[in-house]
């Protein structure tokens, strides 16, 4: 049982790291701001989400696990809002240039 849980954590955390890597590569390599934003949101949502999913079985107590889920939810909310604001600025008529 513990082996399965450990394996699950390891796979989830590795997958999360891959999404962070993909987000960074996209941020550096994609040609314009809107496509880079697309890459960034994947790291925000799935990268952190998968890492937290992997940490849940290791967190030791219910309250810590609850806090971890809350952390992910807050970063989701923040990421979605920031992405909206950045996209509005990045439009051709936007004011972020």
């Amino acid at each position, binding site marked *: 049982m513990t082996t399965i849980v450990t394996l699950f954590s390891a796979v989830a955390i590795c997958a999360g790291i891959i999404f962070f890597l993909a987000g*960074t590569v996209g941020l550096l390599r994609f040609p314009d701001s809107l496509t880079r934003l697309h890459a960034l949101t994947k790291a925000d949502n799935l990268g952190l989400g998968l890492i937290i999913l992997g940490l849940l079985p290791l967190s030791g107590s219910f309250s810590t696990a609850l806090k971890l889920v809350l952390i992910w939810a807050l970063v989701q909310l923040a990421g979605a809002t920031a992405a909206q604001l950045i996209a509005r600025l990045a439009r051709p008529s936007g004011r972020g240039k």
Partner: protein
Amino acid sequence: MVDTLTVSAVIVLAIVAVGLVRVLRGPSRIDRMMAVQLLGSGGVAVLVLLAVGSGTEALVDAALTLALLAAFASIALATTLVQKADLAAKADRAPGKPES
């Protein structure tokens, strides 16, 4: 397991640190904002990895605080850019006139 989590923290930090090149290079202001947004989520990930790895509840609280305020920099930057653009537009419309 503790070591594995620390290794993961090092890798995540190294990855988002590479992303910081976007802060350096820009070219536009929104590109810099995006790199900081990525560093913010990466920082939260590093803190939760270290927190669970070392069993330190206080680090979970620090990560919670960072997560709560994760959008603040972007919001402040965006409102500032719009405010600046509005001020510039106002100045363009009324050249040389003092603000009433």
